[in-house]
């Protein structure tokens, strides 16, 4: 749109000059938003991000402790959604086993701190490296599969890994879980408390956002999007699709493992059923998709929005909160199949709310 309307010396461009009576020149026929360009909604998104960041940094002075914990969870899920976005959104490989990196990261921290008396930070580095390494290990066979098959394979890997963790109680504590020494003389790193974890998760979210922002603008990001659209054509264009897919999975795994690490430290006691829960994977996927998978700010929007919503429902509708949450997700997926971010930019571009378009298009 901008390409045709922003020519000062030529008020009437070729296509519009023939029919000057048909609408103002600025509202031409709808065209697809040029991909990869900065749009107004993207700018607004980043402004919002900055504003939120300032509020978050001041949060400990503004909010009560229970809200700080909620906020930590919001940041964590936004990070997880963003990490999933790299492999599921940009690359188009819908991992249903991303929680495996979360659990792996958490258990790395717990085992190293409880059994080997490491302090948190070096253990975090090991957890991140292991997350990336595990992604490579399982990515080499599973990334040969596509679509549902990849989803099922990764789901299987996550469930299998949980079983392994359950069955080596000497290392992991098995089903009884493992406790990170957080207080007292055995504590290797002093427990950061609500404020500390809020900042840890915020910092990780910022890292994840910047990483995806950088990826989206880099050759790597173009390679991932090309693979997402058509893998054969991507390979024919010279993209080493195998390497790029594995790299994307590794970045996703590393960030997810870091989130799991911080989470394990925050929770102190961890259990396989929680740390490898399919629910966490499902939440990552839903948050990324409803926010806008394959976009930079979509997972942030989805993660923040849905986590707050879920928290609000839990507090106000104790008996029905999962039911209501589920219903809202179904409606959101039906109405916004492309995600909230693309919906917003469509709204700005078309200057109307295209809320029913999807229903009409697919006669739902």
């Amino acid at each position, binding site marked *: 749109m901008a*390409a045709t309307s922003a020519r000062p010396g030529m008020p009437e461009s070729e296509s519009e000059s023939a029919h000057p009576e048909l609408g103002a020149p600025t509202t031409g026929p709808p*065209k*697809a938003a*040029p*991909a*990869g*360009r900065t749009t107004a909604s993207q700018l607004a998104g980043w402004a919002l991000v900055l504003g939120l960041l300032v509020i978050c940094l001041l949060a400990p002075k503004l909010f009560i402790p229970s809200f700080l914990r909620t906020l930590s969870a919001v940041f964590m899920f936004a990070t997880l959604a963003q990490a999933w976005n790299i492999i599921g959104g940009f690359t188009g490989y819908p991992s249903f086993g991303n929680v495996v990196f979360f659990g792996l990261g958490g258990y790395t921290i717990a085992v190293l701190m409880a059994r080997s008396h490491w302090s948190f930070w070096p253990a975090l580095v090991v957890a991140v490296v292991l997350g990336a390494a595990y992604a490579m290990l399982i990515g080499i066979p599973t990334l040969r599969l596509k679509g549902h098959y990849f989803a099922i394979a990764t789901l299987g890997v996550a469930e299998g890994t949980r079983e392994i963790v359950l069955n080596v109680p000497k290392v992991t504590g098995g089903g009884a879980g493992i406790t990170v020494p957080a207080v007292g003389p055995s504590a290797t790193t002093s427990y950061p408390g609500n404020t500390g974890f809020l900042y840890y998760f915020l910092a990780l979210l910022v890292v994840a956002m910047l990483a995806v922002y950088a990826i989206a*603008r*880099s*050759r790597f990001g*173009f*390679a991932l*999007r*090309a693979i*997402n*659209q*058509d893998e*054969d*054509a*991507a*390979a*024919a*264009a*010279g*993209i*080493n*699709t*195998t390497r790029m897919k594995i790299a994307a999975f590794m970045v996703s795994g590393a960030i997810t493992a870091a989130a799991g690490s911080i989470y394990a430290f925050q929770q102190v006691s961890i259990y396989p059923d929680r740390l490898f829960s399919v629910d966490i994977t499902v939440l990552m996927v839903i948050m990324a998709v409803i926010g806008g998978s*394959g976009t930079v700010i979509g997972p942030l929007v989805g993660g923040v929005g849905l986590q707050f919503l879920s928290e609000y429902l839990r507090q106000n509708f104790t008996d029905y909160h999962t039911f209501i949450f589920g219903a809202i997700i179904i409606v959101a997926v039906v109405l916004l199949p492309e995600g909230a971010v693309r919906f917003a930019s469509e709204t700005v571009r078309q200057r109307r709310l295209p809320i029913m378009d999807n229903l009409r298009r697919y006669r739902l």
Partner: protein
Amino acid sequence: MTAALETRDLSVRFGGLKAVDGISVTVEDGRVLGVIGPNGAGKSTFINLITGQIRPTRGKVLVGGRDLTGAKPWKIAAARVARTFQINKPFRGLSVRDNVAIGAMFGAPGGGSVAKARGVADEVLERLGLSGVAELGPTELSVAHAQRLEVAKALALRPRVLFLDEAMAGLRPAEMEPQLELIRELRREGLAIVVVEHVMRAIRSVCDTVLVMQEGRELLTGPPDEVLADERVITAYLGQRYAERQRAERAEAGGSGPAVADQVGPRPEGETRAPG
């Protein structure tokens, strides 16, 4: 001088089916090889074997004398072999410019930054007359522009060998001529080009040599006029009865005129094509 592209006894079996069986061709720089044959003859599979989408079970692929048999597609692309696909494969989420830029980013020797690749893309789009639609999404293009975009994506790799798999399909006669002119121009620039086509007018007007495939095998190879007049080719395309009828008609008319009619060949539904 080593040929830009050479295949020796190239073959692939899918179970009991010999999809491509012992095809040997040589394409020099600045030459155009046409590959024709009925649907299912193995033309696209032949390309896929060379460009790495399918690994051959037997035979060799040499690019500029270098053995690239069974190499991955991106290795082939790095050896400056580019291709289009029979079914257009645009990157839907990206603008036309970025569709082309991808090839320049990864395929061109040494690769390039995003900004540099977009510069290359703009040059290619300019050359193919697509500058006006650079900002659009690939789904908004006309058939002719969509076909051109596929060629543009391939050219962004700065290829030495170019495969065009039915780049004329769906084009109106008037739209075909610029596409043919482009092929001639690229040929003059020294590209080795392999054209898979059902449109005989295109084959006749740009090819130096034509390979006719039938059931995976080479039926015959030769200059276009000779090949298109060959009885076996007519039979392969149109079946025995039509070939006999045409022979009778030709005998009546004194044996002149083109043998394989321009409207020869199966065509996908709803496509327009040049009248004979």
